C-alpha cells in the first residue's frame, strides 16, 4: 500500500460498491407498457357511405393494455390482393379548425373555420383506433355490391406490438342527400320522390279535408353547371301545387324565412326562396336552431295560420329534416300532389 493516497482504499471500495449497486439495478424489469391479450376490435367490418365524413367509434376494447396505444392501417388492399391507391393516396378534404356553432353571421365566417388539407380517404386515428372516412365520392372507390377492401391493423405501444388481420371495408355508394330515394347497392332511384318528416293539419282548398302526408312529394334536384358557370353553393326551396305551379312562399306566413336554414343572402320571390349556403347541410352533427333536436339533420319548417271553421285559429304546415352532402346549386321542391292547402280564412 502506498502512503501517498491514504484514502485510496475507500475510494476504490466505493467505486466497487457503486458498480455492484448499478449492477443490481440493471436486473430490474424494464419499464414496459402492458399490451393486453384481451385488447381487440369489437367490429371488423366497416361500411361507410361515400361522399360524407364517417367516423366509426367505440370499435376498440382497450382491456389491459397501457395507453396511449398506436394504431396503423397496413396492407390496405382490394379484395383480390391488388393495391388500393384510391384509398391510400392523399386527396383534398375539408378539415375543421374552429368549431362550427351555428351562430356564424356570414359564409366567410363559416369558411374561415375550415381549411382544405390532404388526407388519405380512409384513416385510423393514431391513438384511439377509430376509423374515419373523409367525404369523397371518387368513382374509383369500389362500392357495394363489390366486396370492397381488406386491411390489417398494427397495434403497438412501448410494451410491444400486435396485429389484427382481415378487416373488411365495404363502402356504400354516395347518396348526395337524405332522406334518400336511392338504392344503396345499385345507386338507382327506387322512387321519384321522398316524403316530408312531419305535418301539421292543413286543409285542402277544394274539399276542406285534411291533407295527408302522402300528398306531399319532396324532390331534391341539383342544377347542372352550365359551361363557364362557376360553382355556386345555393339552395332554393320551392313549393308547388299539383299542377307544378309555384305557391307563393309568403303564403306560409308563419315561416321564419330568415332562420329557415343556415343560409345567407336570402332571395325570396313569389315562386321560390334561395339562400347562399355552405355544404354539407347541416355542416356538422351539432344541434343549432336550424337543425332537428339531435342535430343530425337540418330542419325546414314551413307553416301558416288561418281562421278556420267556427272562428278557431288553425296552424298548418309541414317540416322536412334533410341533409345534403354534395356541394352545388340544389333545389328542394315540395309538391302537393293532391289538393293545395287552403291559406285563406273561413
Amino acid at each position, binding site marked *: 500500500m502506498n502512503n501517498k493516497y491514504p484514502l485510496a482504499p475507500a475510494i476504490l*471500495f466505493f467505486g466497487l460498491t457503486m458498480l455492484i449497486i448499478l449492477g443490481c439495478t440493471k436486473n430490474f424489469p424494464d419499464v414496459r407498457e402492458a399490451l393486453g391479450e384481451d385488447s381487440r376490435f369489437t367490429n371488423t367490418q366497416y361500411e361507410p357511405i361515400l361522399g360524407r365524413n364517417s367516423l366509426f367509434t367505440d370499435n376498440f376494447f382497450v382491456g389491459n393494455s397501457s*395507453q396511449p396505444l398506436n394504431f396503423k392501417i397496413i396492407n390496405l388492399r382490394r379484395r383480390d390482393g391488388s393495391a388500393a391507391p384510391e384509398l391510400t393516396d392523399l386527396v383534398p378534404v375539408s378539415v375543421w379548425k374552429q*368549431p362550427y356553432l351555428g351562430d356564424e353571421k356570414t359564409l366567410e365566417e363559416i369558411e374561415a373555420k375550415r381549411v382544405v388539407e390532404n388526407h388519405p380517404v380512409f384513416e385510423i386515428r393514431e*391513438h384511439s383506433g377509430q376509423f374515419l372516412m373523409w367525404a369523397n365520392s371518387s368513382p374509383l372507390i369500389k362500392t357495394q355490391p363489390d366486396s370492397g377492401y381488406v386491411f390489417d391493423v398494427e397495434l403497438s405501444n412501448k410494451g410491444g406490438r400486435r396485429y389484427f388481420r382481415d378487416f373488411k371495408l365495404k363502402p356504400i355508394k354516395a347518396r348526395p342527400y337524405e332522406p334518400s330515394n336511392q338504392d344503396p347497392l345499385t345507386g338507382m332511384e327506387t322512387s321519384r320522390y321522398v316524403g316530408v318528416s312531419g305535418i301539421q293539419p292543413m286543409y285542402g282548398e277544394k274539399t276542406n279535408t285534411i291533407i295527408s302526408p302522402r300528398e306531399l312529394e319532396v324532390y331534391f334536384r341539383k342544377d347542372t353547371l352550365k359551361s363557364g358557370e362557376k360553382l355556386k353553393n345555393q339552395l332554393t326551396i320551392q313549393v308547388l301545387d299539383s299542377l307544378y305551379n309555384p305557391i307563393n312562399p309568403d303564403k306560409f306566413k308563419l315561416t321564419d324565412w330568415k332562420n329557415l336554414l343556415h343560409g345567407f343572402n336570402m332571395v325570396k320571390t313569389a315562386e321560390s326562396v334561395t339562400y347562399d349556403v355552405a355544404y354539407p347541410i347541416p355542416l356538422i352533427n351539432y344541434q343549432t336552431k336550424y337543425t332537428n333536436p339531435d342535430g343530425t339533420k337540418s330542419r325546414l319548417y314551413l307553416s301558416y295560420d288561418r281562421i278556420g271553421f267556427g272562428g278557431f285559429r288553425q296552424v298548418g304546415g309541414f317540416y322536412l329534416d334533410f341533409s345534403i352532402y354534395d356541394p352545388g346549386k340544389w333545389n328542394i321542391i315540395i309538391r302537393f300532389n293532391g289538393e293545395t292547402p287552403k291559406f285563406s280564412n273561413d
Partner: protein
Amino acid sequence: MRHLFIIFSLLTLLCFNTEISAQQKKVLMQGTVIDKQDKVTIPGVTIMAGTPLVPVGITNGNGEFSVSVNEGSTLVFKYIGYLNATHKFDGKLKFNVIMSMSVNSLKETVVVGYQKKTKEVSTGSSVIITGKEIQDVPVGNIMELIQGKVPGVNIQNNNGSPGMRGSINVRGLSNTNVTGSGSQAFLTPTSPLFVIDGVPVDDNSGYSYGFDQAGPGISPLSMIPQEDIERIEVLKDAQATSLYGSRGAYGVFLITTKRGNSKVPVIQYTSNYFVNTPPRLRDVIGGREERMSRINQIMANDTSFYHGLNLVNITPFLSDSLNAYYNNSTDWQSKFYRQTFNQTHNVNISGGDQTFNYKVNTGYYDEKGIVENTGFTRYSMNMNMQYEPSNKFKLFASVNNSLANNSKGSGSGLLQNGIAKGGSASSLLPAPSLFSSTNSLLSALETNDENKTVSVTANVELQYEFFEGLRASSTFNYAYVTGTTDTFLPGYLNNGFNEVTAYNDRKNTAYNRNLLSYNKSINEKHNFSAYVFNEINMTDFRADMIKQKRTPSDQVQGPLGADYFNSLGGTLNNITDFRSVAFAGSFSYNYDTKYVLDLSYRIDGSSTNGPDAGYSKNPSIGLRWNFNKEAWLVKKDWLEYASLRLTAGRNIVPTGTIFDVYGRYIANGSYNQNPTVGLDLKLVPNTGLTPTETTQYNAGLDLGFLKGKIGLVFDTYYKQVDNQLREKNLANHNAFAKVNTNETSLVNYGYELAVNFRPLSENSKLSWTIGINGAINKDVLTALPNGARELVDPGGDTDQQIFRRLGMNSLSNYLLNNTGVYANNSNVPVDPLTGLRYRTGGNAADQTYFRAGDPIWTDVNGDYVLDNNDYVVVGNGQPRMTGGFTSYLAYKNFSLNMNFSFTFDRDIMNNALAADFQRYADPAYTGKGDFNGLVPLDRYDVWTQPGDMAVYPFPLDFTRYARYRPFRFDQTLFMEDGSYLKFNNATFAYNIDRKLTKRWGMTSVRLYVSANNIHTWSNYSGPDPELVSAMGRDNSGGYPNRRSYNFGINVQF
C-alpha cells in the same frame, strides 16, 4: 457547618500525613465531575489511579468524589459514553473535572443480536440516539422527536392525535398494499420492530395505527415516558437486524430505559408545562358575504337571468336573510379547535452500583388535543433492577406498567371526518345547539368516548458464566396490553336512537430466549465470539365488541333493555393466535479489531408459514475493515478512525394470518333448523404462504477527522422485499372468491449520509455541534401477482386510482393530465372530421363541450372525448429524499438546541384544495351532500374572463359543473410538490449555578423553554405538507399537528 467539616477533614489529613509520610504520602482529593455540554454533574464515574490503573472510587449521586491516593498520582475518570478525563496532580486537592461526551462514535457500544459490542467491531449499519436528545419537548410518542435525526428513517408526523404516531419507514417502502380506496386509502404500515429493554413490541397491528379500526389506537411506544429513555438504537441493515430475524425485516429500534448507577440514590424530577395551539385554520367567507357570494354566483352564471332569480327566490337561506335560522355568521372551526394547557410530571429514582442497581420511574403525562373532546393521559411506573454479585452471575429484571386514557371524540385515531365535515359547514347555519346544529358538531363534542389502554410488561434475564468465555443466558418476558373503548352516542344526535359501543381487546405476548455464548481471545489479536440461541414467541390477540342501539333513554347507558334486533356484538375477525420459533447461531471473528467478520444463520418457523413452505432460512454476513489501524495510516494524526463495512443478509416478517393458510370455518346459517358450520368461501387456503422476505446489501464508510471535529458515516444499500402478501381475486367460476399469495416484490436502493461537525476548538467556552443527515431512496416494483406487468387499483370516492407498473416506483398516481385553462373558446381543440369541440364523455346528458375557463386535460387517445382512456401515469407519493439537521450550542450555563427536518421530492395530492373549490359547485345547495361553507379564492390564480391565462379553472359555472367537474380529484392540477423544510423544535436551557442549587439542597436545577413544530417552509398550497397520508394524499379530515410552547424544569436531588 460544611466549612467546618472541610477544615476538620483537612486537619485529619494532615495528621495522617505525618503518620505515614515515611512510606508514601497519601492525599485526599476531592471534587465534582461535570458534563461539559450540559453542565450537570455525573454520578457513578469510576476514578482510577496508579499503575496499573485500579479503581479507587466512584462519584456519588451529586457527582462528587473524594478519594485518597498517593501524592502526585494521576487520576483517570471513566464513564460510559464519555472520553476518559485525566487529572494530573497539580498540588490542588479540590478541583472540578469536566468530562465531555465521546464523539468517537466508534467506541460506542451497540447491541447487535442481543450481544453488546463496540461499534468498532460491528459490521452492521446502526445509529444511536441518546435519551438526552429527546427530553426537552414533551410529546406523547417519542418517535415524533426522532424525525430527521436518523438518515434513512423516514418519519412523517402525519397524525396529530395525542398519543398516536405518524408513519415510520426504514429505508423506503416495504409493502405496497393499500387498504381501502379514495379518501380512505391507507398504505399498509411497515413500522420497524421495537425492542424495549429486550422485549419485542410489534407496532404494526392495525389497532396501533389507529385508522378505521376499533379500539383506543394508542401506539405501544406512547406507553413509555420519554424521561425514562436512556437511548434508542436504530438498526437498519440486514446484518444488524439479522438476529431479530422473525420480525426484523422492516428495521429494528432498540429502546433502552434508564438504569441506576449511583451509590447514593438520585432523584430526578422533571416537569413540563406546555400550551398546544392549533395551526392556522382555513379562511372562510362568513355570513352576509357568503350569502352574497352565492347569490352573485347564481345571477352571473345561471342559464338565464330569470332562472337565476327564481333559483335564488326558492332557496330560503339565500332569499330569507332575515330568518333567524339563516341569519348567522358561525365560525365553525372555532367550535372544534382549541388551545390547551397541559402538563407532565416525572420522577426518576435510581441508585446502586455494578453489583446491585435499581431504578423506578413514575410518570404522568396529560395532553388535551387541539380538537375538542380529544386527549391523552398516561400514568406510568417503570422499574428495573440488576443484581450482579460476581462476574459469574447476573440477574436483570424489569416491570413496566402504564395506563393511558384517551378520547378520540367522534373520529377514529387518524381521521376526524366528523370534524372536517362540521368544521367546513356553511357559516349561514346557526351555532350549535340541540335544536339547530349539524349533528357532526354535536357528536364531536358530546360523544362520550372513553378509551383505556393498560400495558404491563415483565422481563427477567439471567446470566451465568460457566468458565471464562462461556456464558449462558436466559430471557423470559411477558407483555400484556389491553384496550377498552366505551362510546356513547346520545339519542338526540342520532335520530332519536342512542348507541352504546363497548370494545375490549387483549394481547398477550410471551417471549423466551436461551442463549449460549463463548468468547475467546488468543494473544489479544485473534478474537472469537460465537453464540447460539433459540427463541420462542407466542402472541394472541382477541377483540370483542358490542354495539347496543336504542337503550331505554339517554340516561340509561347500559346494555340492559336494548333493542336486541338492532344490536350487534361478538368477537372481531382480527383474532390471532400466533406462534413462532427460531434457532440461530452467530460467529464473529476479528483480528486485532482491524479485520472483522460476522456470520449468522437463523431458521424461523411461524404459525402463519404454510406447512408446505417450511422454515425460512436467513443467513447474513458482515465484513469490516478498520483501515485506520493499518500501519500506513496509524500515524496520521488527522485521521481518527476510518473503516469500511460490507454486509449482506436476509430477514423476514411474518404476514397474513393463520386463516390465510388453513382457511376458516364459519357459522353457515341453518339447515333443517339445525345450525351448520361451513367453510368460508371467501378465501381459499394457501398452504404455501411464506413470510415477507427482505434481502439487503449494505456498504458503509465511517470516517473521523481531527479528533472528533468531523465525523462522517456513509451507507449505501440495496434492499429487496420479496413475498409480499397480496390478495388476488379468483375467476368467478371458482368456488372461492380470493386467495392470498406472496407474489409481489419491490426493491429500494439508496444512499445515506450523516456528518457531524464541531467547528470550535476543544478549549473554547462556546461549544457547538452540528449534525446533518440525509438519505436518498428510490423504490422499484419488480414483481406483481400472476406475472402481470401493471395493476390499477380502483379510485373509490375520489377516483384517484393507484397505478403499479414493473420497473417504476411502486405506487404511482393515475390522473388526468392538466396543462392549464382554456383562455378563450377558440383554444378548445376541434375534431377535424366531425367539427365538434373536445368534450366530456359518458351519457348524452352528462356530456358538455369544453369552453373558455375549463381545465385543459390532455386527450391522450386523441378521440376528442375525455374519458377513462385519458389517464396518465404520473407522480410518486413516497419521498425521494429525507433528512434533517441539528445544531447544539452551549455557552457556560446556557444551551440552545435546534432541530430541523426535511422531505424533498414527493408528490402530494392536494385533495383539500380540490374540495375547497368544489364547494362552489352548488351555490343554492340543491343537491345531496353537505351544506358547506365557502372559502375565499382570491389567493389562487383563477380564470375569470376570456383571455385569462390562469392556473385554476373557472369555479363558478355551477350549471355545467356535474358534467365536467373541473375540480375533480383525479387530475394533475392538484398534484403538488410536497417538499418541505420543517423547524421541528428548539430548546433554550439554563442550568442554575451549582453553588446556588446546593444551598437549596439540590444537585442541579435545569430550566428550559422549548417550542415544537415551529415552522414549515414549503411551496405546497395546502395547510401542511406533512399532514398527508402515507400514500401522499392530503385528506382534510386528518388530525392537524399542534404547535406547542413549553416551559420545563428538571431538578436532581
